[in-house]
């Protein structure tokens, strides 16, 4: 039985198969409309999330399956003190596959260790968010044509931003990728990631100026500074609007550069950028549904 905890759980060959399947789903949606008839996805979300939860629900529904679950810890047995390991033992009796989001890092791994059904990590604290990464990779592959041979800038909260961490881990395995980490000093990429980049001799730079980075990028991955990751409100207020991507900055970028964002955005991308053809973040949402459909089919061994 396979689970998904980390983007590296799949080899690049397995990811190619997953993305090929997602591509087939995109173009032949009706072929998969009953692929999960009679099957149930449990969405165990211990912290608020609209996009990821709805994306999973949409994916399972489009496959003909059904969805049960909870959308915050207050409406689950966690509020009564139930452990993650007990919850997943119970959920294993109700559903065929589980997507779990939890504010504590490593919680889905605890679930995986006690589960009888495949578990998908739908985000664990500031740690990993592998299905967002699969979405990002599918978007890049679909819009850029390949996963390699480019310079990608990641901008914003690179310290707590799990989407950024997961994407970096996943891209490390492809050829000829250069990273530009654009963040304030306080929100730099954690050292465990830069240690791996150094050991693999993958080029990266840490800079503060988004303007300086723009002309050098093939892809820009913007992230939000997340209030819930800060223990100190003052730090959050000081850093939340550090970067704002607007049309003036977009003019510095190459004509074929793409802007991605895991969403939701707050102020970090000005709405005036939405009409720029290089803004790919809403297409990314659509790819998120296709890749989750492909993932559910793969983990349920229906593909």
């Amino acid at each position: 039985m396979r689970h998904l905890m980390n983007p590296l759980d799949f080899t690049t060959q397995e990811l190619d198969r997953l993305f090929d399947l997602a591509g087939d789903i995109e173009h032949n949606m009706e072929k998969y409309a009953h692929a999960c008839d009679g099957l149930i996805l449990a969405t165990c979300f211990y912290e608020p999330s609209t996009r990821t939860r709805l994306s999973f629900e949409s994916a399972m529904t489009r496959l003909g399956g059904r969805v049960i679950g909870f959308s915050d810890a207050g409406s689950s047995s966690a509020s009564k003190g139930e452990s993650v390991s007990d919850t997943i033992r119970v959920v294993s009796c109700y559903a065929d596959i589980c997507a779990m989001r939890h504010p504590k890092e490593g919680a889905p791994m605890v679930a995986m260790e006690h589960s009888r059904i495949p578990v998908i990590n739908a985000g664990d604290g500031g740690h990993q968010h592998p299905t967002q990464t699969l979405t990002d990779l599918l978007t890049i592959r679909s819009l850029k044509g390949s996963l390699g041979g480019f310079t990608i800038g990641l901008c914003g909260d690179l310290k707590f931003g799990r989407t950024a961490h997961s994407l970096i881990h996943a891209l490390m395995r492809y050829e000829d990728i250069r990273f530009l980490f654009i963040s304030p000093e306080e929100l730099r990429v954690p050292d465990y990631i830069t240690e791996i980049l150094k050991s693999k001799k993958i080029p990266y730079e840490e800079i503060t100026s988004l303007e300086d980075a723009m002309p050098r990028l093939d892809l820009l991955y913007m992230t939000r500074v997340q209030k819930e990751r800060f223990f100190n409100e003052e730090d959050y207020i000081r850093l939340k609007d550090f970067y704002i991507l607007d049309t003036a900055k977009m003019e510095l970028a190459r004509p074929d550069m793409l802007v991605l964002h895991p969403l939701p955005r707050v102020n970090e991308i000005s709405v005036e950028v939405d009409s720029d053809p290089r803004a790919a973040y809403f297409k990314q949402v659509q790819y998120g549904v296709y890749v989750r459909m492909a993932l559910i089919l793969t983990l349920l061994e229906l593909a």
Partner: protein
Amino acid sequence: MLNVGKIEEGFVLDHIKAGRSLSIYDHLGLDKLDCTVAIIKNARSNKMGKKDILKVECDINMLDLDVLAYIDHSITVNVIKDGEIVDKKDLVLPRQIKNVIHCHNPRCITSIEQELPHIFYLADPAREIYRCKYCEEKYTEHSKKRK
């Protein structure tokens, strides 16, 4: 000078930093074993000034000594059989250590699920870096002192 008799089969852990023998006693789980243990604290040492020594009389296959490599490289492990030293064991950093150190990351699941073991894996053998299995928080020499 205090004299402790020799053992027939087991281990003599020598050159333990003075005062650390009780901690090692705990880490090896000796409190749970039905065997004879001599704990010698603050023995005179030419090399160290003062040192601790642990003598454990047991089947030599009974103890997992790898955890010692994580706690202190400089400990000498003498393997005793028929009253004689038959081997000096090289300590190898364990690939995984369980409940030796605790994860101090307040965002880690181990901070709220009390029954979870604190498991660390060897992420970088060359630099002796261990990371929490669940949250990947790094633990180094500095962190060991926090235990």
